[in-house]
């Protein structure tokens, strides 16, 4: 099963395909509607992701439950960021990147050539390591970027949507009076929360966060950790972090990946409830890593 850059696929599970797809743009305008909005389950099956034919992470099978915060931890080079980028197909946007295996979103393989990758990226949002507000847009337009530039919903003022997204990202009070100011003028922590608001405004079912706090100071980190716990109410969160205390603080489930030495692909060592991973790990490598003996 090699998809390369989206090769045809013959081993699709036909029953899985019949499951109704989550409406990608169901708009929960208020909190009640948001609560009704149920994220789909994400199943990773035998996933191997490669760059130029060299696997960065191999043979990963994993289930990400809805409304949970899942932390991916492990030493540098273990492929946790690559794995995260596979979950919404962003991995294939890099040159010479290939994927084998399946990522099932509510039972539908996102690498099936019949599935529109743009729909997948609307359902599975992403926040990057460095804040990336669009420098030419105001705070308001940044929040609405995914909505306005997307295909489904037309233009409009969407004042309620802006407010709601900024509230959920914990930024509303700080920027309510300067929504027309450039997004690049905010502090680093505010910019990252603006990016989170922008991702949430599209109403994704799952939000992927690639070390969202590594470029931020401790206070901004705390603010973002708090909001991750709140986001869980409406969507599933998968977070990559180098910071084990952060993983312990915010996540319900922890996935430990490891790489034996540079040049071999990273592998999944252990996944389980966060408490178990940190207090009673089944694997020696997990214990060594979480107790700080290496990595």
């Amino acid at each position, binding site marked *: 099963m090699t998809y390369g850059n989206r090769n045809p696929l013959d081993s699709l599970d036909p029953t899985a395909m019949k499951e109704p797809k989550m409406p*990608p743009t169901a708009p929960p305008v208020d909190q009640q509607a948001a609560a009704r909005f149920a994220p789909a389950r994400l199943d990773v099956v035998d996933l191997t992701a490669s760059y130029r034919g060299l696997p960065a992470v191999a043979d990963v099978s994993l289930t990400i439950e809805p409304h949970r915060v899942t932390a991916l931890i492990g030493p540098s080079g273990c492929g946790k960021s690559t794995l995260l980028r596979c979950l*919404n197909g*962003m991995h294939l*946007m890099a040159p010479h990147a290939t994927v084998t295996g399946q990522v099932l979103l509510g039972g539908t393989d996102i690498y099936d050539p019949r599935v529109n990758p*743009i*729909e*997948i*990226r*609307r*359902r599975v*949002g*992403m926040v*990057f390591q*460095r804040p*990336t507000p*669009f*420098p*030419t*847009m*105001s705070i308001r*337009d940044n929040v609405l*970027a*995914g909505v306005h*530039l*997307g*295909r489904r919903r037309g233009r409009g003022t969407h004042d309620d949507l802006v407010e709601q997204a900024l509230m959920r990202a914990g930024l509303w009070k700080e920027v309510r009076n300067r929504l*027309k*100011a*450039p*997004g690049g003028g905010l502090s680093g922590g505010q910019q990252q929360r603006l*990016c989170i608001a*922008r*991702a949430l405004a*599209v109403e994704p079912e799952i939000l992927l966060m690639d070390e969202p706090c590594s470029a931020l100071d401790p206070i901004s980190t705390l603010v973002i950790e708090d909001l991750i716990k709140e986001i869980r109410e409406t969507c599933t969160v998968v977070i990559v972090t180098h910071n084990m205390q952060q993983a312990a603080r915010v996540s319900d489930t922890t996935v430990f990946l490891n790489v034996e030495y540079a040049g071999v692909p990273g592998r999944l060592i252990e996944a389980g409830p966060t408490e178990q991973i940190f207090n009673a790990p089944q694997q020696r490598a997990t214990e060594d890593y979480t107790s700080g003996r290496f990595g």
Partner: protein
Amino acid sequence: MATHFASRPEAEPRPGGPGLRRRMATDMVGTGVLWLATALTVGVLLWVLGYAAVQGFRYLGPEFLTSTPPGDPSRAGGGFLNGIIGSLIVVGLATVVAVPLGVGAAVYVVEYGGRLARAVDFLTDLLIGIPAIVTGAFVYALWVTRFGFSGYAGAISLALVMLPLIVRATAEILCLVPRDLREAGLALGVTPARTIVSVVLPTAMGGITTGIMLAVARAMGETAPLLLTALGNDLFVETHPDHRMSTLSLQIFSNAITGFEAAQARAWAGALTLVILVLLCTAVARFVARRSSVTGAR
């Protein structure tokens, strides 16, 4: 160099010793050379500008900007109104053709890549190296021999001069737009094309505008290809680009080579007008680009 490094460990413990003095001397010589190079470059530029200004302002005035040259070039008076209008029309047409093509090609080269893109990239470098007179001869052979001298022919030749400059400048600016921004757009479920149009291009707008203005400035001053295409028209104001028309550069050329003092005064005034026109265009374009890109107001 070798002795320099070898002497360092001994020189270090004694501040103010011969090692330090030699390094300070090297530093002073290096700074001096760089200062001299900068002074020479800026000096020559200022000299050219200043000379054109001094000579130009002797005649540049309301009459120059509002009248056409006298029928007899040796007579004083008259102006380059037809050339100013011709330059604006011909360069304007060339810009309208070259900007969308050039920016489009650059977007293709940078954002889509592939073998064809590399070929376009290589051809752009080749095109930049082609002398403008060759471009003029090309348009003469293909267009003028069939349809005659005209402003359109001039605009085509100038567009060919501008095109590779715009492609090169735009491509370089697009390469500077961080990859993160493109990924951020894609991660929101925005299509790649829409990400380019609404995120990448606006971010690069300032640089692209600068590149376009450099190409416009170059086209404004271009004379050789226009001699073979627009030909010139010193008699009256021609606004229809289907006919032969004059441009500032052509009028500067034709007046400067006459040898009559009055004509040369007009040529200097024309040269100064050209410089001012390019400066004005650049200022306006920068202003517009800044307003449209940074404030974020829709």
